[in-house]
């Protein structure tokens, strides 16, 4: 499950975002999210996998086995067409949400 410090649904968006530049394995995804957010958005590592599986079910991602830089057998996740579309949608939604919140913060 998403950890409490996330806005609901953001984990999906972050994963989609992380994979936008190419296939990654699970550990790399969590590293990427942590690094990109300057360690602010840390998630419990285990909770990444249920989210990945839910996205597989939805057809946003596909997974295949490959090898890592350290020559380890890992499962590599990549975006499907549907996933790319979804990433765009999520980004838009998120920006609209943030925009709305910022607007509200300024005006109220």
């Amino acid at each position, binding site marked *: 499950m998403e950890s409490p410090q996330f806005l609901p649904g953001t984990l999906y968006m972050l994963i989609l975002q992380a994979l936008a530049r190419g296939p990654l394995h699970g550990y790399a995804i969590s590293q990427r999210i942590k690094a990109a957010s300057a360690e602010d958005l840390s998630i419990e590592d285990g909770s990444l996998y249920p989210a990945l599986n839910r996205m597989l079910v*939805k057809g946003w991602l596909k997974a295949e086995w490959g090898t890592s830089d350290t020559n380890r057998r890992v499962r590599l996740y990549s975006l499907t067409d549907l996933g790319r579309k979804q990433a765009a949608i999520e980004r838009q939604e998120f920006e609209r949400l943030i925009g709305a919140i910022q607007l509200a913060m300024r005006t109220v």
Partner: protein
Amino acid sequence: MNLFAEWLRRCRALFQRDRLDQHLREEAEAHIEMRAAELQNEGLSPVEALSRSRKEFGPLLRMTEDSRQAWQFQTVEGLTEDVRYGLRQLAKDPGFTAICLLSLALGIGASTAVFSVIWGVLLHPYPYSGADRMVTFRVASGAGQNGFSNYLLLNEHEFEALHQSDVLDAVIATDSWDMVATGKDWAEAVRTGKLSSNALEYFGVPAMFGRIFNKSNASERVAVLSHRYWQSHYGQDPGAVGQMLQLDRENYRIIGVMPPQFAWFRDDVYIPLRSTNDPDRTYIIDGRLKAGVSRKVAEDSLQATIASFAIASPKRFPPDVRLKVRGMNSAVEEKLGGTLKSLFGGVLLLLVIGCANVSILFLVRSVCRSGELAVRSAIGASRFRLVRQLLVEALLVGTGGCTLGVLVANVAVPGILRSMPQNSFPNEAAVEVNGYVLLFAVSVSFITAMLFGLWPALESSRIDLSQVMQASSKRVLGSSARSRFNGTLIAGQIALTVFLLAAAVESTRTFLRLYRTPLGYDPSHVLIVSLQLPDGTHMEIAERQHFFAQVRQSVSDVPGVKAVGLYPFGFPPRAEFMRKLELYDQPSLTAQTVFANSISPEFFEAAGIPLVDGRLWSDAETNRAGRVAIVNRTFAERYWNGQSALGRRVRMPDFKAVTKWMLAHPGSDDWLEVIGVVGDTPNHGLSEKPRPAIYVPYSLVLTDSFNLAIRTDGDPLDYANSARRAIQAVNASQPVNEIRTAEQILGDEGWAVEKFIATLFACFSVVAIALAAVGVYSVVAFATEMRRQELGIRAALGAQRLSLMLLILHSGARAVLAGLVGGIALCGVANATLQRWTQASLSDPALIISVSFGLLLIVVAASCIPAWRGACADPIRALRENSD
């Protein structure tokens, strides 16, 4: 589209569950190792790095579980799991499961069986199109006549005129008549329905083979066979269509065979009604109302038309004619509707009692399972999850109960049909466990499962963990709320059982009262043979009278036959022919009616009716149609109170030939001299007092059908064949319609309905008692189990076993007593309804009290067994068990 693809992916995953688990395991390992490697780089020791990495990853189990869930059809898989688990739980406790299933199977089976009868007989008896708008017409005299009504009979011309009515959608004329199948070795009566050319289309039932007749071919000699006749006479050969059938020496071409449910008037063969233009030939009229027209409106609208027919030919209509429009099934509804409704009420009560049992058992068991539920709740099962689990178990029991119940119904339906009074339901009615009945059974099972499952589920899922942890779980969960609920259920069960039992005893008493009614005649050893003259034969009065006498004589010559009496219709306990009556010495008495019987004098000996006063008429008087009469005792007492009836003169002004098929001696409506008085016999059913009846020589008015009452030596049915032979020795082409015994008639007409009710209620109440006893047993056994420790202490301190047992019994006593009181109150409340539907009445206090007392004994016996066992338990063991 997306959803479908998603669904497909989930489906595929169903078959790759092991692989998914393996992926997850491998991924998690890789993740943890990679993180550990990184931490090692940051300077941690390998062991530290690994443990830190594991901690960051979080619980492995939850991750696998959550990931797995992502792939599942959430509810479906959860449910399958619940079902599997529920089945295991039920199998673990076969005694519990068996009692639950039995309770439900009996309740559901009985209500399904009675429902299938109600569906077939009352709700959906006819296969005809628009059957709910089909009506029959009856006519009655506006004045007096005790509500007697007859079929509306119209001739062709009047029938045509009725087509113009703006309240009728369609109208048909029919006539059932015995024709003789000729061209064979022996004469056989064929019950032939003569139907107006529009009739078969009116019914809207297509032929099973061939075709029906309609306006286009009704002028030809064609015939359509009933399914029954086709079975018995053509061995189900579809080749029957196209063959010739000879009826009354005329050839009819068979053009079709009707399906089994088409049983209009239970006729064998249907032929088109042939136009005769004879104003005296009349037909039974049936019609279908236009949509939205009520029977009352139709009645008012058609009354004027019928009244105008009556003015034109007063002979054929009762004076001051009143038309009655009745539903096709009205007679059945009146005769059996109340009975079936009360039986249905009875089975529903049975079902409720069965459900209460299951509910009690579920509640008791949930207490025994409280440990399990507490553990599940502690590891995070939500209350919803627990309730769902318990409800699934209830549904499983419900499903099992439904299946068994349908099996029970399948066995019970033929039994109910057998014990149902003969000829009491429509010929067309197909009583069977059909789709609608199954639907009923399934929905009833579902609803009951929810009813008996929901409360225990809600109650036992309310778990206070801290309490379970701290105390002996049993003590906490056997809390007072629960035992109050059990008490309520027991009280309700007992109340309903008292009611059912009282209804059963009362209906049995009603039946026995009728059964033991002094009859005034002797129905044993009497064979009744019905004859109908073929159409248009014996149309000359002297010849017909001679033929009747010959037949009577021929049958009385059969060895073993003691007496043979002729009568036209109406054997006790029911007379059928009611006539107006005038008394010579009391001209002021008008509007009197009497049951008229035109018989041969041997009828009294054959039926076993004693002559009380005077004499019977002689053969000579019969032959010359003497103006003599014999009255029954009620007649003599009502009109000549205390004085001799002999020599008085009476007259029936309308006792004459009213149709072409009746032949009357001139002066049959003259004054008749009373020459004798006979004992009373029931003539309006067994429950009513005999009404005035008069017997006159059959030669006064000869009808075209007559019956022979034959008193025999030994079993009357042994004489059926010899009687038939004796009749056909007189005239080989005279068919025999029906052979019954006077005892069968007495049963059918006298007490068949009451016997039916009594039998079924007796069955219900036996089941109800058994269920209630099981319910009480389980509750007491449960209470004993809960108090084991307390009982152990008491026993250890020196309490006697008997006093311990009384202590246990005492705890249940309040519920039982409340139930008995409730039952008595229920009898009082439901009495009015029951009385409206049946002849039974629950107002006898002795009945109610004795029934309650009887049930009390049974309940006490049922609770003594577990109570005694509890009282006898070894105190040491009871105490030690609890200190663990």
